[in-house]
C-alpha cells in the first residue's frame, strides 16, 4: 500500500455541490413547501414619498382564497428592523418599519400583506388593496440639500468622517492640486434567484422555523428572536440552496419578519417568493455615491494628501448595515498607496429610493474607481506616466505590515503582506504592456478609438473575530463538518471539505459539510466580506488538526504503536515506518469511542472535536486589472477587447473555484461599468423594473478574460495563509474600464461617471473632438 498522502488544498477539484444542482434536485427557497401553507403577497407603495392616510383592505379580505390582510395597524408590536451591529441611538429613527405606518418613502415600500391559498389568488387580492396617499415632493438625489426626514430630523442621517495627518498643510505645500467630481451609479447584486422566505411554527416543539435563509442565518436568528421575543432555541433558520447572494441576499428584510409573525399568528406555514419586479425595487440597492475628491501632489508625483467629500445616496431607510458602506468607503479609499495625510467626509443622505446596502466589494468598487481616476488625473496633470505615479506611491513589501489609522468594518486597517507594485509589474509583463501600448497607438493613428487602462487595488477579506467548526467521524468513517458558515453558491462545501480532507487525511468526497442551519451549531457568522474561506476554513483546519490528533491518540493505543509513527491517510490510521503493518479505519476508531464502547477508557465519547479560530485583523489580498477597450465613436458603445485580472490570494484552496469567483465578479463589474443602473423619473418612479431595463450582461457582452493568480504573499494571520477570493474580480473593473475609455478617446479624465452608457459616452465625444 502506498503511503503517499493525497493533496487536496490547492487542487482544482470538482465541486461536491454540483450533483443535485445539475440534475434539478436542488432546493432553493421556492422549492420549499409545507402542507397547508399560505402564500404571502406584499402590497407596495406606488408613490415615492407621501403621507399614508388610509388603506382599504375590505375588497381584498373578501376575495377568493384570502385568509388575512394586514397593515401596520395589525402588527403594532413588531418593531422596525434593527442594525446588525446593535443599537446606534442617533440612527434608530431611520430604521425601516416592517409595514409603512404614516409615511411612504419609496416606490416598493411594503404597506400591506395579503395571505391566501395560492400565489395567484394572493396577487389578485393584493390588486384590490387601495391606499390613500397624499403625495409629497420626493427627494431623489444625495447632491441636493438635505430636507426634513421627519419633524426636527434631517435626511442627512450622519456624516461619517475618517482621516489622519495634516491635510490642510499638505495642500498648502503642494506643487499641484488635482480635483475631481465623480459619480458611481446605483447598481445591485441582482442574483438570479429572487428572495424567498418560508416560515412554519411547530407548536408541538414551540419552534418557529424560517426557511430560505442565507448569508447570515445566525445573526438573523438573533435579530428575529429579539424582535419576536422568543428564546433563540425556539427560533431556527435554515439555509437551502441559494441562488446567488452578492451581499444583498440574506439580510433581514420586512418580508422575513412578516412571514414569521404570520406563521405564529395564523398557525399555518407562510410562503413568500419575491417576484423579479419586486426584487428590483425592494431588495437592497447599492453603490450610488458622488465624490468630490482632491489630491495634493508633489512635482515628482508623490501624493501628499487626499481630501474626499462624498455623498452617499442611502435610499429611504437605513437597513441592517446602518452606515457600514459609507464608513468603509472612508476607510478603504487610500487602497495600495501611502497617502501621508487623508481626510474623508461622507454625507449619508436619505432619498426616496430603494434603501441601499452592500453589494459585492462594497465601498471598494466605488473607491477604486475614485482613487484610480484620481491617480490617472494626477499623471495627466504632471505629464507623468500613470504607472510611474502608482510606483511612486505604492506601499512596498518592505513596509509590511502597514498600519493605517483608518477603519473598515470596525477594525483598523492593517495591511498584512504583499508586493502591490510587483503584481502590477507582472500583470503588465503578462499583457506585454509596452507592445500593447504601441499597437494601440498605431491603431488610434489609423482612426480607431482603442485604449488601455489600469486599476490597482487592495481588497480586505476574512472579517473576524472568531469562527468555530465541529467535525465528527461516524462509525462508517464518514466525516461531517458542521459550520456556522453559509453557502451562497461559491463552493463553500467543497472548499471546507478540501481543507478538512488534507488536514485530517480523508477523501474529500467522504466529507459532508453543513452550513446555514442554526439548530446544528450555536455560533456562526455566515458568508460575507469574503470571510468564509479565511475564517471558517481556518476553523476547519484547526478542528481537523485536533481531530487527527485525537484519532492518532486512540489508534496509538489500539495499534500499540508510538503516536509519532502514525499518520492518517485516506481515512485510515497507518504506521509510516511500517507500511505493511497494522492499520485502523477512522470509522473503527469512532466505534471504539462510541459512548457504550468498553475500549473508550475515560476519553470523551465520539470521534468529534470543535475547533475555533480567532483573529484580530482582516487579511488584505490585492489585485491589478488591465483593460483594453474599443469605443464606437458613432454610437458611444464600448467593447472590452481584452482584460487581465491579476490577483494575489495568498493561497488558493481550489484555484478553479477562485478563478470562477474572479470571472464572475468581473462580469458583474462590467455590468456596473457599462450597463447596469437603477434609474428613476422625476416623481421617483423606478424605471429599471424589468430585466429589459436593468441590463445584466449576457455572454455576448462578456469577453473572455485572462486571470493571473499568484500566491506570493500568504497571509501570516491564519494557518494556511489564505486570503479571500470573493470580491477581487469586481473591484477594479469600473476603474480600469474608465481609464481605458479615456485612453481610447484621447481625453484624459473624460469618464467621471459609472456606468459609461453609450449615451453618456456619446455626449463626452461630442463635447470636444477627440485628439488623434
Amino acid at each position, binding site marked *: 500500500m502506498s503511503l503517499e498522502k493525497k493533496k487536496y488544498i490547492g487542487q482544482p477539484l*470538482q465541486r461536491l455541490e454540483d450533483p443535485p444542482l445539475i440534475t434539478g*434536485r436542488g432546493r432553493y427557497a421556492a422549492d420549499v413547501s409545507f402542507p397547508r401553507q399560505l402564500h404571502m403577497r406584499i402590497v407596495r407603495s406606488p408613490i415615492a414619498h407621501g403621507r399614508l392616510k388610509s388603506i382599504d383592505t375590505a375588497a381584498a379580505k373578501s376575495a377568493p382564497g384570502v385568509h388575512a390582510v394586514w397593515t401596520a395597524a395589525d402588527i403594532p408590536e413588531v418593531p422596525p428592523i434593527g442594525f446588525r451591529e446593535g443599537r446606534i441611538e442617533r440612527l434608530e429613527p431611520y430604521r425601516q418599519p416592517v409595514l409603512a405606518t404614516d409615511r411612504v418613502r419609496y416606490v416598493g415600500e411594503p404597506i400591506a400583506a395579503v395571505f391566501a391559498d395560492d400565489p395567484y389568488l394572493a396577487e389578485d387580492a393584493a390588486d384590490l388593496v387601495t391606499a390613500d396617499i397624499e403625495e409629497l415632493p420626493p427627494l431623489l438625489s444625495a447632491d441636493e440639500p438635505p430636507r426634513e426626514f421627519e419633524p426636527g430630523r434631517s435626511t442627512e442621517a450622519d456624516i461619517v468622517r475618517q482621516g489622519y495627518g495634516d491635510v490642510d498643510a499638505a495642500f498648502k505645500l503642494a506643487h499641484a492640486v488635482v480635483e475631481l467630481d465623480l459619480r458611481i451609479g446605483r447598481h445591485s447584486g*441582482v442574483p438570479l434567484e429572487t428572495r424567498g422566505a418560508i416560515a412554519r411554527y411547530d407548536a408541538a416543539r414551540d419552534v418557529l422555523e424560517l426557511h430560505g435563509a442565507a448569508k447570515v442565518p445566525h445573526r438573523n436568528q438573533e435579530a428575529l428572536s429579539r424582535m419576536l421575543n422568543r428564546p433563540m432555541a425556539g427560533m431556527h433558520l435554515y439555509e437551502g*440552496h441559494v441562488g446567488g*447572494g452578492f451581499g444583498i441576499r440574506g439580510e433581514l428584510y420586512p418580508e422575513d419578519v412578516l412571514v414569521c409573525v404570520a406563521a405564529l399568528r395564523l398557525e399555518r406555514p407562510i410562503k413568500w417568493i419575491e417576484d423579479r419586479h419586486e426584487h428590483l425595487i425592494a431588495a437592497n440597492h447599492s453603490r450610488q455615491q458622488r465624490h468630490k475628491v482632491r489630491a495634493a501632489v508633489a512635482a515628482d508625483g508623490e501624493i501628499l494628501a487626499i481630501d474626499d467629500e462624498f455623498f452617499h445616496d442611502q435610499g429611504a431607510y437605513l437597513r441592517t448595515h446602518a452606515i457600514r458602506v459609507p464608513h468603509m468607503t472612508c476607510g478603504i479609499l487610500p487602497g495600495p498607496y501611502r497617502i501621508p495625510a487623508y481626510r474623508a467626509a461622507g454625507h449619508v443622505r436619505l432619498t426616496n429610493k430603494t434603501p441601499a446596502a452592500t453589494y459585492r466589494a462594497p465601498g471598494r468598487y466605488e473607491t477604486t474607481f475614485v482613487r484610480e481616476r484620481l491617480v490617472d488625473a494626477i499623471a495627466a496633470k504632471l505629464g507623468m506616466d500613470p504607472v510611474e505615479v502608482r510606483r511612486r506611491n505604492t506601499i512596498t513589501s518592505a513596509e509590511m505590515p502597514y498600519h493605517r489609522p483608518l477603519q473598515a468594518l470596525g477594525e483598523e486597517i492593517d495591511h498584512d503582506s504583499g508586493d502591490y507594485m510587483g503584481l502590477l509589474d507582472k500583470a503588465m509583463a503578462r499583457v506585454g504592456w509596452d507592445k500593447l501600448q504601441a499597437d494601440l497607438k498605431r491603431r488610434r493613428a489609423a482612426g480607431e478609438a482603442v485604449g488601455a487602462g489600469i486599476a490597482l487595488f487592495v481588497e480586505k477579506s476574512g472579517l473576524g473575530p472568531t469562527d468555530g467548526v465541529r467535525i465528527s467521524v461516524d462509525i462508517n468513517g464518514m466525516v461531517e463538518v458542521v459550520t456556522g458558515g453559509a453557502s451562497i453558491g461559491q*463552493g463553500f462545501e467543497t472548499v471546507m471539505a478540501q481543507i478538512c480532507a488534507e488536514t485530517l487525511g480523508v477523501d474529500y468526497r467522504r466529507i459532508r459539510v453543513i452550513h446555514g442551519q442554526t439548530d446544528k451549531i450555536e455560533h456562526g457568522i455566515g458568508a460575507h466580506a469574503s470571510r468564509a474561506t479565511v475564517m471558517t476554513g481556518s476553523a476547519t483546519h484547526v478542528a481537523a488538526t485536533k481531530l487527527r490528533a485525537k484519532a492518532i491518540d486512540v489508534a496509538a493505543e489500539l495499534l500499540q504503536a508510538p503516536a509519532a509513527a502514525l499518520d492518517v491517510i485516506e481515512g485510515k490510521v497507518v504506521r509510516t515506518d511500517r507500511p505493511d503493518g497494522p492499520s485502523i479505519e477512522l470509522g473503527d476508531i469512532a466505534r471504539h469511542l462510541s459512548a457504550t464502547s468498553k475500549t473508550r477508557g475515560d476519553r470523551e465519547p465520539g470521534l468529534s472535536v470543535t475547533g475555533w479560530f480567532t483573529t484580530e485583523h482582516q487579511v488584505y489580498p490585492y489585485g491589478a486589472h488591465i483593460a483594453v477597450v474599443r469605443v464606437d465613436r458613432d454610437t458611444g458603445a464600448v467593447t472590452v477587447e481584452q482584460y487581465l485580472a491579476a490577483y494575489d490570494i495568498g493561497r488558493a484552496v481550489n484555484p478553479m473555484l477562485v478563478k*470562477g469567483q474572479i*470571472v*464572475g465578479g468581473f462580469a458583474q463589474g462590467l455590468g456596473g461599468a457599462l450597463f447596469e443602473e437603477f434609474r428613476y423619473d422625476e416623481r421617483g418612479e423606478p424605471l429599471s423594473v424589468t430585466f429589459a431595463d436593468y441590463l*445584466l450582461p449576457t455572454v455576448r457582452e462578456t469577453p473572455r478574460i485572462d486571470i493571473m493568480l499568484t500566491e506570493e504573499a500568504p497571509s501570516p494571520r491564519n494557518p494556511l495563509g489564505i486570503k479571500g477570493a470573493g470580491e477581487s474580480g469586481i473591484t477594479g473593473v469600473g476603474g480600469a474600464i474608465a481609464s481605458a475609455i479615456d485612453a481610447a478617446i484621447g481625453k484624459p479624465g473624460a469618464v467621471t461617471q459609472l456606468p459609461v452608457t453609450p449615451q453618456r459616452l456619446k455626449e463626452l465625444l461630442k463635447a470636444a473632438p477627440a485628439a488623434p
Partner: protein
Amino acid sequence: MTAKLDVTLKVNGRTHKVHVEPRRTLADALREDCGLTGTHLGCEHGVCGACTVLVDGEPARSCLMFAVQAADKEIRTVEGLAKDGKLHPLQQAFTEHHALQCGFCTPGFLMLATGILERQPDISEDDLLDVLSSNLCRCTGYENIVKAVRDAAARMKAVR
C-alpha cells in the same frame, strides 16, 4: 379565478394529469403540479431563461407558455436529462468545467444547450454564442458555460 381545466402534460416521458386554471404558466404547473422543481423561475417575463424547457424538442420559456398550451406536447425538463443514473454529457461537462456556481440558472442553460446541440451538433462558435446569449447567469461570467457546452458538443458527437 376562472374554472380549472384538466390538462395532460407529458413530461420526460411520463404523463401528469393536472387540474389548473388557464392562466397557470407551464413553469408553475411543472413545479407545483408535477413536482418538478428543477425548472426555475428567475424573472417570469421571458428574459432570464432560467425556466427554459424543451417543448417538442425546441427550447421554450416555460414562464411564457400556459400549461393548457402544452397539453399533449413532449416536454423535457432538467430532471429527465440523466438516464439510468448516468449524467447527460452536458451535465458532466458543466460540473467538470465549473460552469455553475449557485446553480440557479443551470437547468435553463442545460435545456437550452440540449435543445440546440440536438438540432445543430455542428453549430458554429458565433451561432452558439448567439443561442447562449438567450439566458442570464449572474455568477460565472459565462466563460465556463461556453467551455462546457463546447466540450459536451464534442462528446455528444463522439457518441453519435
